[in-house]
């Protein structure tokens, strides 16, 4: 845990986010930890707008906007250039939404992770294409409403498990994080920055307009996501060693679902189904966290 909450703000006022935007809270805390000696790359996402239009920059770090599917490739290019300039101490932050990470950017993320580029990749997950107006992504939870999954045929199939994909690459460090646990989020960003090689943080980021919640409920919903075990907070080291960071209260998923307009069409059976799946996934996670990890030096 970080006991000294950094007071420096590298995210300046005047950013163009919606009220209650989780993605903005994630960026603010990432930069508090990473500091000024950081270069940030952002693909097409809400943050393409939030950062401000030309010639403004709401961040106190250099920022390059890059094409939708290229966050990890762009970060790799910046890393390579910095290394050639002898600037190994400058950190590279790729900051992308779920669409740019789970969907269109997955190939370049896989490439960079397999090469073990020394970058920090943060995915702020608001569970749909929010910047274009709430279209489903492969990070959208099962049965949720979006504009391309209307209530007549809500999102089918479970949310893609991005950490499982990355741990399959034996990534040195990956973790989930939440805006409702800022100290935990910052501690993880610190670990990511100190990791030699690729580090990935999957940050849960409520979106009031997309989730149909009022803007003051972002943190409450984020807290419920963890306490209902829908979005557990955990880390994976070297793709093998699991560590759960917060013990969920084990509240029923209904407490989470009923507070959001995007789930208002769900009936009792739907809620039971989601509860069963969440319970199952939690068991799998628990088992993984209890497994003796494989060590190369054994």
């Amino acid at each position, binding site marked *: 845990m970080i006991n000294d909450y950094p007071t420096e703000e590298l995210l300046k006022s005047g950013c163009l986010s919606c009220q209650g935007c989780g993605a903005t809270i994630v960026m603010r805390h990432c930069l508090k930890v990473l500091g*000024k*000696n*950081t*270069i940030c*790359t952002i693909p097409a996402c809400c943050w*393409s*707008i939030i*950062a*401000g*239009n*030309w*010639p*403004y*920059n709401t*961040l*106190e*770090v*250099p*920022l*390059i*906007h*890059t*094409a939708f*599917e*290229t966050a*990890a*490739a*762009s*970060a*790799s*290019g*910046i890393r*390579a*250039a*910095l*290394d*050639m*300039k002898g600037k190994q101490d*400058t950190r590279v932050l790729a900051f992308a939404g779920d669409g740019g990470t789970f969907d269109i950017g997955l*190939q*370049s993320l*896989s*490439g960079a992770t*397999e*090469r073990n580029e020394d970058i920090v990749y943060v995915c702020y997950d608001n569970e749909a294409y929010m910047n274009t107006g709430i279209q489903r992504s492969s990070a959208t939870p099962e049965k949720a409403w979006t504009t391309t999954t209307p209530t007549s045929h809500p999102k089918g199939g479970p949310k893609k498990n991005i950490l499982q994909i990355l741990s399959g690459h034996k990534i040195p460090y990956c973790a989930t994080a939440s805006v409702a646990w800022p100290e935990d989020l910052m501690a993880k960003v610190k670990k990511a920055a100190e990791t030699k090689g690729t580090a990935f943080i999957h940050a849960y980021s409520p979106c009031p307009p997309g989730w149909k919640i009022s803007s003051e409920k972002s943190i409450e919903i984020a807290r419920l996501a963890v306490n209902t075990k829908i979005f557990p907070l955990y880390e994976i080291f070297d793709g093998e060693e699991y560590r759960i960071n917060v013990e969920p209260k084990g509240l029923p998923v209904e407490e989470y679902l009923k507070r959001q307009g995007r789930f208002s069409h769900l009936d009792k059976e739907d809620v039971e189904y989601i509860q069963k799946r969440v319970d199952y996934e939690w068991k799998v996670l628990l088992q993984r966290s209890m497994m003796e990890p494989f060590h190369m030096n054994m």
Partner: protein
Amino acid sequence: MKKVLMGNHAASWGARLSKVKMIAAYPITPQTHIVEELSEMCGDGSLDAKFLKVESEHSAMASVISSQSTGVRSFTATSANGLALMHELLHWAAGARLPIVMVNVNRALAPGWNIWVDQGDSLSQRDTGWVQLYVEDNQEVLDSVIQGYRIAEQVNLPVMICYDAFILSHTYEPVDIPDQDLVDKWLPGYQPEHYLNPEKPSAFNGLVMPDNYMEIRYKLHMAHERAKSVTNEVGQSFGETFGRYYGAVEAVECDDAEMVIAISSSATSPARLVIRELRDKGMKIGLLKMRMFRPFPTEEVRAVLKGKSKAVVIDRNCSWGKGGIFADEIKGAISNQEDMPAIYSYITGLGGRSITPDLIHEIVTEVESGEPPAELSVWKGLKQ
């Protein structure tokens, strides 16, 4: 130092002599030797550069865009479908005004799979904002990569050096490798005014509203206008230092010519032979080598063609539904001008078919004796 090099290794040497600091590439035939050689050079320390072995051409271009934006001279190479995959980011590189140099080995696009020469891959990237040079032999490959950086860094535009698959890429020719010290003096290290710098944080490539977008794009167009004279100046300066002169176009025996053959890339060499033979027989014929395609050398083309009666344009490419691309561009350049020749457009040599001196002879004879063909572009060498 003279070495016998294949075209692809001449390209690698061009990058090495330019002291590129970052290379990102993905394998594709017939480009692969370039990056294999560069990988060796990085490995044995003869080139101090980072080599990023990315998972696609798209990521190759994305990463060189970002490394160049971080202030480091960057290089990549590709061909055909690889170039097509980069398309979105070609616009990005030019729009961001980055002086990246890329080699494209001209190869036919699939389907059906065809790995042989065809200019359709790079010509279909015409409007991405890249400077494009089409080169004739392996010496020109090496020289043009070095010149590419001088042009690119002077006008802040990316430059694509294009040459023919197999005819140059896999063929060995004697190549003079300039002295590194001389190249260093002629092409100093890359010193950008703006780059991603934590001591001076600013945002690159951000959202531009309608009240500014058009002005930014006008500047891109004006940079291309400047690139025309810069390409000629750089080619002249290169000649003064290294003894080999280049320009946007090359006119051979055109002064008193009545007919001119306009042609590009390696097919220029057999055309030179044909011109010499026909001159010996007393025919007043000249050759216009089209080295630069973007920006289009409008003024040079007009100056060469003025007063001629006929011009034959031989294209190893086709804009489907229109015809030969160089022919079309040349027609555009001379429109509304007085005293210009009739243009005869021929398409041949697609997908690796040879453009022989005999074929060029046949075309010239046809144009000399006949009426202008009914078709906009005549396909020559088709099997019956």
